[in-house]
């Protein structure tokens, strides 16, 4: 029985409560609030169990914080310490609690074996990747319709706008608003692959572009069609499947746009899925006119889903993986760019996007974190002339 090297202790001190800590397993992404007495006890674990007359103070603080949205604080513990509920546990109960949160483990090999994809929705042994954890949480704990959740976490209730009080609004929408104003023009043929409810199609069309929105979800497309403005049209196609985009003529688009969609073709979305990016990229290359541009706006390869740690205005994070993702869902840059080059595209621009200033008033912690550690990356690629 010991504390694995994956555990860190973070102070959550205040004047009135100086002795309060977060014990966090940064790989398992599990947390427990602990008092100094528990911290000391971590150094003499074999004694804890026999101290059943003693009571140790800790706090149950872990929560699956991404239930608030994919771009919500991913730190997995309740941030408002005023709401932390005290737990006074005897030695046996404390050990059980520490093991439950992977702050203490019995066997290193057994623990490490848990870092594998989940085998199915009821698999609570393997930690799995983010998509799997999220799906399990939504289906079994929240009992929410995943389609409704996906829309709610990003869009306003009327589905006509990106929520301004989220980082989607403060980074992605603000950026694309400016992008559309500068880059769209009358007669430009744009294809939005994975268009969802069509909000960005409407944005591009407002600035004169002729936009084709493509999505495999009829549910999203029906929302898109109900809210469509002139210059847009929407079709259901199986993106990324052989022949899926054959209805789109070759060399027909000046610009292909993908927002938060490309990553799903690199990392399996559900257990057993075969993610194959090559079919999709070959289609994009085929669809683009010579000199046409592919614009990819995706969560950042390094910083998406890393915990927002430290003081509100002096953030830091802990990065536990980059080249070989067990949890993360965005491929490393070399893999993404390598695949794009293989498909006949070359990079002409890259930006790492920060939040608009207004967001400081909504969520200071999120603002300061996203300002230092970009949460989206923009790649622009052009088709290599043959």
């Amino acid at each position, binding site marked *: 029985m010991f504390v694995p090297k994956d555990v860190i202790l973070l102070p959550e001190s205040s004047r009135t409560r100086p002795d309060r800590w977060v014990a966090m397993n940064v790989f398992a992404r599990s947390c427990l609030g602990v008092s100094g007495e528990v911290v000391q006890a971590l150094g003499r674990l074999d004694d804890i169990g026999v101290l059943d007359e003693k009571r140790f103070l800790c706090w149950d603080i872990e929560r699956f914080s991404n239930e608030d949205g994919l771009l919500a604080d991913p730190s997995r513990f309740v941030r408002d310490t005023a709401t932390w509920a005290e737990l006074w546990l005897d030695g046996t109960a404390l050990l059980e609690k520490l093991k439950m949160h992977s702050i203490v483990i019995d066997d290193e090999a057994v623990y490490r074996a848990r870092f594998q994809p989940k*085998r*199915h*929705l*009821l*698999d*609570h042994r393997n930690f799995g990747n983010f998509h799997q954890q999220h*799906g399990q949480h939504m*289906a*079994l*704990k929240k009992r929410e319709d995943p389609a409704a959740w996906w829309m709610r976490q990003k869009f306003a209730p009327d589905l006509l706008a990106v929520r301004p009080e989220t980082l989607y609004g403060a980074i992605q929408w603000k950026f694309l608003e400016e992008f559309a104003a500068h880059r769209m023009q009358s007669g430009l043929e744009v294809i939005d692959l994975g268009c969802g409810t069509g909000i960005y199609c409407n944005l591009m069309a407002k600035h004169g572009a002729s936009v084709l929105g493509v999505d495999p979800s009829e549910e999203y497309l029906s929302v898109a069609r109900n809210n469509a403005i002139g210059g847009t049209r929407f079709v259901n196609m199986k993106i990324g499947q052989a022949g899926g985009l054959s209805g789109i003529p070759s060399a027909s688009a000046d610009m292909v746009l993908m927002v938060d969609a490309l990553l799903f073709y690199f990392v399996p979305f*559900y*257990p*057993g899925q075969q993610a194959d990016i090559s079919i999709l990229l070959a289609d994009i290359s085929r669809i683009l006119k010579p000199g046409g541009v592919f614009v990819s706006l995706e969560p950042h390869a390094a910083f998406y889903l890393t915990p927002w740690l430290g003081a509100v205005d002096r953030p830091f994070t802990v990065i536990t993986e980059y080249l070989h993702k067990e949890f993360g869902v965005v491929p490393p840059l070399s893999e993404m760019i390598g695949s794009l080059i293989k498909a006949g595209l070359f990079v002409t621009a890259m930006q790492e996007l920060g939040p608009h200033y207004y967001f400081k008033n909504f969520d200071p912690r999120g603002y300061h974190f996203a300002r230092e550690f970009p949460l989206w990356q923009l790649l622009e690629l052009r088709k290599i002339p043959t």
Partner: protein
Amino acid sequence: MSNNQAVLDFFVRHGVRPLPIGDAALSVAYLDVGLIDSLGIVTLISELESKLGVQFSAEDMQSYEFQTVGGLIAILDRLTGTSG
């Protein structure tokens, strides 16, 4: 409809192949052997809850018992206060 019948009936309608006859069905780990997929489990939970008027707890769904046909029936028996 008994809990036993409700569970077996679900797998007859949604399983990709039939369950073994008799007691052999009880030990089948229906997800491990691919009898239903992850979407199927969501259907199973909501259908059994609404049909039998029960609510599975997070602990029920995290248990290994939940992952076999017989274990699932045993959990339902406890939730409905039925023995066997």
